[in-house]
């Protein structure tokens, strides 16, 4: 009995440190769109399609492009496109 209390107390002492976790300030910032312009301008030969990071970026940016062309009827987006 006593033998068990001692290590428990010792641990309690060790653990008597604490930090309180507030919700991180970055959480739930407004969703941002991927900034693909610079990446998509790179010549295709320079991209290594076997690299998972590059592949993931290509995928993300292609979806983004498709979204833009599909919603061409949308006046706001159309305006946006004329700037390019």
């Amino acid at each position, binding site marked *: 009995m006593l033998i068990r209390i001692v290590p428990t*107390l010792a641990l309690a*002492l060790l653990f008597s*440190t604490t930090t309180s976790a507030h919700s991180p300030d970055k959480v739930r910032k407004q*969703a*941002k769109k991927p900034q693909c312009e610079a*990446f998509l301008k790179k010549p295709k030969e320079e991209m290594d399609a076997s690299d998972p*990071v590059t592949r993931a970026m290509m995928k993300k940016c292609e*979806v983004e492009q498709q979204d833009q062309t599909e919603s061409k009827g949308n006046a706001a987006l159309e305006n946006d496109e004329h700037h390019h």
Partner: protein
Amino acid sequence: MKAIKITLGLILLLIATGVGFLYSGLYPMGADDRHWGVSYWALETLRERSIKRASENISVPDLGDSDLLLSGGADYNDMCAGCHLQPGVSSTDLSLGLYPAPPDLTASADKHDHAHPFGEHDWDAALRRQFWIIKHGIKASGMPAWGETHTDERIWAMVAFIQKLPELNEMQYQILTARGESDQGGHH
């Protein structure tokens, strides 16, 4: 008989001292008051031995799929970067104010101190450890248990993402982690 009495007496004294210390209010509780080297060592050893044991039997899935980087990246940016940083951000209020400090996950494993505490070069063990920590959190530290609210799949995706994080530049990080318009409802 006498020896037993003396031992018992000593043990009681120890307990009394311990409890007395708890009630005395002498322990400095502030996160800005650092541990002694020996307490730090004890806590770290306790943490690493415990996690190692608890994560032993977790089986690591294939983390090669590039889709994992997209789902894990967006989640990391929403939930983790405030403490564990991101390319181009070298400190935040949380990364500076928390104690124990959240390791900088944009630094490669060799640079931040507790990635391979036992000099293990066992890649799977490192992945299991990270998965376990993200899922269960770490007691008496700022690290939350994300398993309460997230599936194992999403947690593995974050594990996959943080393997790549040290290599990413700001542009790559931005693209991988941005939640595009196509992918807004995905969270929580």
